């Protein structure tokens, strides 16, 4: 059974309809990329999965119908969303941000250990643990956002443009870490990226979205070879 199954997903902001029936599935343990131009509906898709916009259609996650559930309940089922803008709690310290990630977990004891584990992944955060998160640099905040999501021990992570605003070197480092986590902890990831080349390198599967519909799908490797994809998104 697929971890995530999306059928005929529609979404709208007020009167403006953004998604017009998206279909896709995701297997457990995989990394899937959603590609598309600005305004195609990638971010909205992620938001729709988390119940942050009004939707129609069916969304099944790990056997639960989550199409009508509230954001916090979806999060508690094991979907961790790293939103665009990173969603940092700016006035709380780095450590408190991490602790919030573990807020809904039942295994409170393991939370402390996990915080240390995150510091293992991102040593920069450890140096900043008592600082207000608002004072962190963009890259550090991105790391914090990913760590906060990981603190939730999710089955599925939704990553909205994790590379945005980061120096290329940092992006590479971040993606390596994501890969490592995916390998080691079998966390599935749904990735939205402008940087299609890097996304396809990381991902197993990919879907191409245009104006609120899936127009193409396949393995990352296959899409990378596809001519039209190359022309439109990879730029060579």
């Amino acid at each position: 059974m697929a971890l995530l199954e999306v059928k005929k997903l529609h979404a709208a902001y007020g009167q403006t309809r953004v998604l017009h029936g998206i279909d896709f599935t995701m297997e457990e343990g995989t990394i899937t990329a959603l590609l598309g131009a600005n305004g195609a509906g990638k971010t909205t898709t992620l938001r729709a999965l988390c119940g942050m916009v009004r939707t129609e259609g069916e969304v099944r996650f790990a056997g639960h119908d989550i199409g009508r559930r509230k954001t916090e309940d979806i999060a508690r089922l094991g979907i961790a969303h790293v939103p665009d803008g990173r969603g940092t709690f700016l006035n709380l310290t780095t450590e408190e941000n991490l602790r919030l990630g573990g807020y809904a977990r039942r295994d409170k004891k393991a939370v402390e250990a996990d915080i240390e584990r995150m510091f293992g992944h991102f040593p920069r955060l450890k140096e900043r643990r008592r600082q207000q998160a608002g004072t962190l640099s963009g890259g550090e905040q991105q790391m914090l956002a990913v760590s906060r999501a990981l603190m939730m021990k999710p089955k599925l992570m939704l990553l909205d443009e994790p590379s945005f605003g980061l120096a290329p070197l940092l992006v590479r480092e971040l993606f390596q870490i994501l890969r490592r986590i995916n390998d080691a902890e079998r966390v599935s990831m749904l990735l939205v990226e402008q940087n299609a080349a890097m996304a396809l390198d990381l991902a197993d599967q990919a879907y191409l979205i245009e104006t609120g519909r899936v127009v193409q799908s396949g393995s990352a490797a296959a899409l990378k070879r596809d001519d039209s994809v190359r022309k439109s998104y990879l730029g060579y």
Partner: protein
Amino acid sequence: MDALLHQILAGLATGGIYASLALALVMIYQATHLVNFAQGEMAMFTTYIAWSLVNAGMPYWAAFFITIVFAFAMGVLIERIIIRPVEDAPVLAVVVVFIALLVILNSVAGWIYTYTIKSFPSPFPKDAFVATKYMSPHEMGAIGITLVVLLLLFAFFRFTPLGLAMRAAAQNPQSSRLVGIRVGWMLALGWGLAAAVGAVAGMMVAPIVYLDPNMMGGILLYAFAGALLGGIDSPGGAVVGGFAVGVLENVLGAFVIGNELKLPMALVLIIGVLLVRPSGFFGKVHVTRV
């Protein structure tokens, strides 16, 4: 010199009243980023509950804690039932609901309990060794209780996951939902806590000013001023601010400008301070992001 000392100490006693209500205001502010104008009336109303319990023969401390529980429940219910439907309405619509709550509670209290003043018992011994002519044992005890409440709140927000979640929910509700925090309940919890703090304030204030439906009416403005002076997002600041307002008011009234104009003058000074230091004494300076 004795006159000044006496006025300052009397000011601290009154300031304790402002401080305790200011603390409740800060509580709600932390949870909802709104100032609840009905806070004083809620405190007054719960104090009547305590009064009824004590009058029915219940020991003081039993009544004290039952009232706190009652106040907490009342706060939660008010949020869930009355405030919830206007959660997404413009801020001023919520303010109108606060005003409505204020007049309803005031009026209903007058209706049930009449307007004659009632004396409310103090838990502190009348002739404690600390009694001086400057401050009664109750006034000192009340200040002590306010500080204990402050300490408890500080510990709650700083060291418990729930306290952390409440702070998070107030700051960034969207992100809070994403980590599984039930933001709606955090708001209700904030209301409950504020009402509970208010109940303590009411029970500490009532022995000093006597219990009547308008008991908190005049105090709200001072508490509001104290909260802002100390820093609206800082419980400790609110308490310091409350004391500062109490002392300032007395000193102005007795030595500087006379009683008729002490309130306008105190407010002018406070606003002057806020012009120079907008976040108050202890408030966090927020980074505004465009």
